[in-house]
């Protein structure tokens, strides 16, 4: 069953263009999407998903479901970096372990968006407030990571300024635009939706497809770094997402989420950040090696999730929920 889901997932334009991007790198084509176009596409996606989430949130209202989901989101965002840190310490120094743990505690908005497009394809509904969960799960891991560095750091305490760290955690452009668009969606509601619909809805799937072409290029360029990261980390980058998705599923079942919401939640748990957290770690833990945390998240976990993970987790949900 999962295999047929995986294949039907793979035969979608976004995933196929992701492969096309990877292929371009492997065959050494000079295809590239020059800066700042990928930035434009990602701003658009955050804007569109946030706005849509807000519009739907105001329609559903803030129910008990919403509150439970958001609490579960924060819980997982704090727990994941904590437990993975101790796994990572087996092979890595404290700095690298903390940075990677933070990366996996946070989320990847593109993975979330790809999962939501996958659900739309299959006509499975999900709620707008999941976007709020997405926003809430981005930042806590950065804070947890830094606390871990301070607790286990090499004797001397880090001299970074907490104000700068908190700013980077909660006001980085992704979180800011996502939350801002969500709030504007709440404020303008159905009426705002109608006027923006051809832009935020009509183009959404196409922009996602185009953006995944770029992600394929970027992810494939990172693959050569995996030699440096070693087998331990590559294994970590595949197994931990499955474990986290599993934890997510159990929680989702416990608090009674719908199938669509449960998938998005487990995808959030399974995904790792390759933009916001790396930037924060470079600034606050300069001792950690960026190759390690960027490459595992980008070249292993991201492709794994969008190709295999999403349909796999859905298969798991169908099993548990039926």
């Amino acid at each position, binding site marked *: 069953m999962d295999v047929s889901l995986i294949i039907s997932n793979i035969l979608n334009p976004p995933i196929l263009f992701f492969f096309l991007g990877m292929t371009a790198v492997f065959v050494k084509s000079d295809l590239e999407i020059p*800066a700042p176009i990928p*930035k434009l596409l990602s701003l658009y996606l955050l804007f569109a998903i946030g706005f849509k989430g807000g519009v739907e949130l105001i329609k559903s209202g803030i129910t008990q479901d919403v509150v439970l989901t958001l609490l579960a989101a924060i819980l997982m965002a704090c727990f994941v970096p904590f437990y993975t840190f101790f796994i990572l310490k087996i092979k890595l120094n404290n700095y690298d372990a903390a940075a990677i743990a933070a990366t996996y505690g946070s989320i990847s908005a593109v993975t979330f968006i790809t999962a939501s497009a996958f659900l739309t394809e299959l006509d499975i509904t999900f709620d707008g407030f999941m976007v709020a969960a997405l926003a809430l799960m981005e930042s806590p891991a950065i804070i947890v990571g830094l606390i871990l560095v301070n607790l286990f750091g090499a004797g001397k305490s880090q001299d970074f300024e907490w104000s700068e760290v908190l700013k980077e955690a909660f006001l980085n452009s992704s979180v800011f635009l996502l939350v801002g668009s969500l709030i504007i969606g709440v404020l303008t509601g159905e009426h705002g939706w109608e006027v923006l619909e051809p832009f935020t809805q009509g183009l959404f799937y196409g922009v996602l497809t185009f953006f995944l072409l770029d992600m394929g290029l*970027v992810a494939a*360029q990172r693959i050569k770094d995996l030699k440096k990261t070693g087998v331990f980390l590559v294994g970590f980058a595949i197994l931990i997402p499955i474990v986290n998705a599993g934890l997510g599923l159990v929680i989702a079942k416990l608090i009674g989420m719908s199938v669509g919401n449960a998938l998005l939640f487990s995808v959030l748990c399974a995904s790792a950040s*390759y*933009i916001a957290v*790396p*930037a924060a770690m*470079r*600034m606050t833990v*300069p001792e950690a090696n*960026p*190759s390690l945390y*960027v490459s595992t998240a*980008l070249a292993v976990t991201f492709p794994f999730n969008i190709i295999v993970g999403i349909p796999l987790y859905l298969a798991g949900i169908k099993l548990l929920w039926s």
Partner: protein
Amino acid sequence: MHPVKKIEIIANSFELGKLLDGLDKSGVHGHAVIRNVAGQGLRGNTEDLDYTMLDNVYIIAFCTPEILNSVIEHIRPLLNKFGGTCYVTDAMEIRSLRCVSSDL
């Protein structure tokens, strides 16, 4: 034409604000900044974080020879902490320093 020192700094764009502050404090009030510089140095390739837009900047500042030591004092600790390189060259200034609206 009178002699000046040319200061060139290549560092991560994250540190740009601090470096310009450092220059300003040591009395160098003019500078030019080129962004999006790729590079390779002691800490490896800038590509390590390129996707997160953490690229290098190239700062050029010409100053009078007297304040060079003050500049070094202000800049060196930043480079030691965050990485980056700094070089000094001798140059001659040509621009007449007279007021702008007085045409030659």
